[in-house]
């Protein structure tokens, strides 16, 4: 039984090994996971768990999740992506989704940063101010 700390350390080393130019190479991660499953080293389940988590966080760092109340047209999408790339770097990719609960506006999440310009958020803030 490998301790969770050791598993985390190993996973971190593996993630670092699969970075290419500051970006996670998903192909390398796939190879590592395949090797882990095939060779089954000591505590490989925990290592795989941690690896999955770290890989997810790494991917999320460079993935902007753009939610909007209505579907965006291509021009708006391009503007949003360009603005985000100007702020966070050219490696940013965007993923678009529609959430009618937002009522209006947009909500963008990159890593743990959230840019919330939705009507829903503004109403909530207003509610807090007056409660």
């Amino acid at each position, binding site marked *: 039984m490998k301790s969770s700390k050791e598993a985390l350390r190993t996973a*971190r080393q593996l993630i670092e090994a699969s970075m290419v130019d500051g970006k996670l190479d998903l192909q390398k991660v796939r190879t590592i996971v395949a090797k882990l499953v095939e060779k089954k080293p000591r505590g490989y389940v925990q290592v795989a768990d941690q690896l999955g988590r770290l890989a997810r*966080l790494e991917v999320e760092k460079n993935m902007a999740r753009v939610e909007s109340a209505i579907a965006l047209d291509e021009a708006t999408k391009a503007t949003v992506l360009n603005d985000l790339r100007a702020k966070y770097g050219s490696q940013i990719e965007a993923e678009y989704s529609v959430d009618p609960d937002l009522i209006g506006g947009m909500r963008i*999440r990159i*890593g*743990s*940063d959230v840019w919330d310009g939705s009507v829903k958020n503004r109403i909530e803030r*207003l509610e807090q101010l007056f409660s």
Partner: protein
Amino acid sequence: MSNILQELESEIAGLKTSVAKTNVGVVREIGDGVAKVEGLSDVMLNEMVEFPGGLYGLALNLEETEVGCILLGEGRHVKEGDEVKSTGKLFSVPVGKEMLGRVVDALGNPIDGKGAINATENYPVEKIAPGIMPRQSVNQPVQTGIMAIDAMVPVGRGQRELIIGDRSTGKTTVAIDTIISQSNINKAAKEAGDDSYKPMYSIYVAVGQKLANVARTIATLEEAGAMEYTIVVVASASDSATNQYLAPYAGCAMGEWFMQNGMDALIVYDDLSKHAVAYREVSLVLRRPSGREAYPGDVFYLHSRLLERSARLSDANGNGSLTALPIVETQAGDVSAYIPTNVISITDGQIYLETDLFYKGIRPAISVGLSVSRVGSSAQTKAIKKVAGTTKLDLAQFRELQAFAQFGSDLDDKTRAQIERGERIVELFKQDQYSPIPMEVEVVVLFAMQNGYFDDVDVENIKDCQAKLQEFFTTRKDAILKAIRDSGKLEDGTVSDLKQAIEDFKSGYKPE
């Protein structure tokens, strides 16, 4: 009506500003009042974070990919996957004079059913203690109203004096007596129209105590009319460990407000052993490495940073003060246990209460040998200093001789005199709970004792004689008391008056 509309409009206009960036995380694990949150990459240590439903938490553990947060309230509705927002604010509590007379929880919310508190200011709960330059040395007394303490282990404004002893030896009583004494002095000064007197406000922090005990304490304070100068902060045994851990800091923030605004305050932490236990619980749930007795490594810092915030500020900084009376409970009289030694080394002295003395009927059960005050004597009122100078030594010698005299009956006259004097001092220092004695009366009694006026009174009649002496002075010799009270000194003229008055009393005194 138009006001509200304008307000609404301005608020709405404020909302139209550009989209603000927030830092968020996702709850991964929750339980025992602690949440592990993934994300929150920009969060600061001790920052408040917001959980869904208006619940707040504190970020205590910053790890590589996770943040360990303690919840400030009931977190049953929080579940895995919930979003947590950072706020960029430190946890603070309402402070100010509006808090006086109120009972609040560790977050500063009223729990006495007397409605909302309209405090205008907030102070952060964790604050760095005043540095060296804004301070000055302790030079004003805190009259505890307990004769044994005022005479032998005096406490000054800005001092930290530990009250330590086994369970049920009267630790809380000493603290409550002090609070009552302060409120009595405040009221007396107010009635006399003395504007130069700085009232002393009190804060009583109950940590991990039974609610029945807290209710009794509050009732005592109310009965004595001390609540109007007192804030009570309660984190009882039924509150979460988080709230118990935060309560002393919240109380300290309220006390600091008085200090920073040039006023004097007294804070009682009742008690710090339970506070350490609550912090141990929080730390273990946060999976911090444990050390001796499973306490985390920073349990010393936990108390030192709290008690360092008590200080006497210099005149340039407003001349305010915060006096701390922390209480620590020992197990079977063991002062060398972990938490007691820590707190003893942090504080400026301790009042040690002994079980044996308590059951012998010597109450307050102050152990003379083990109680000290490192800075208080420079703050002692001159009058008391003059009459109580050698009392501690007399009493310590008496205890030694008493142990020795048990073995033989043949004693020389000097030893016998010392023992008889000692027995009388012990009797005089016995005092009922919740009945603090004013300073000037203490001076009279101590003066009578030092000058041998009690030597011809039988030991069993000492208490009776003392009570009658006090009554004689308060009803018939108020001028002498006033002279001592106003000057704080024992001048030659007063001494001769005092001698004459005591002789008058003695000539008419008959034991019952």
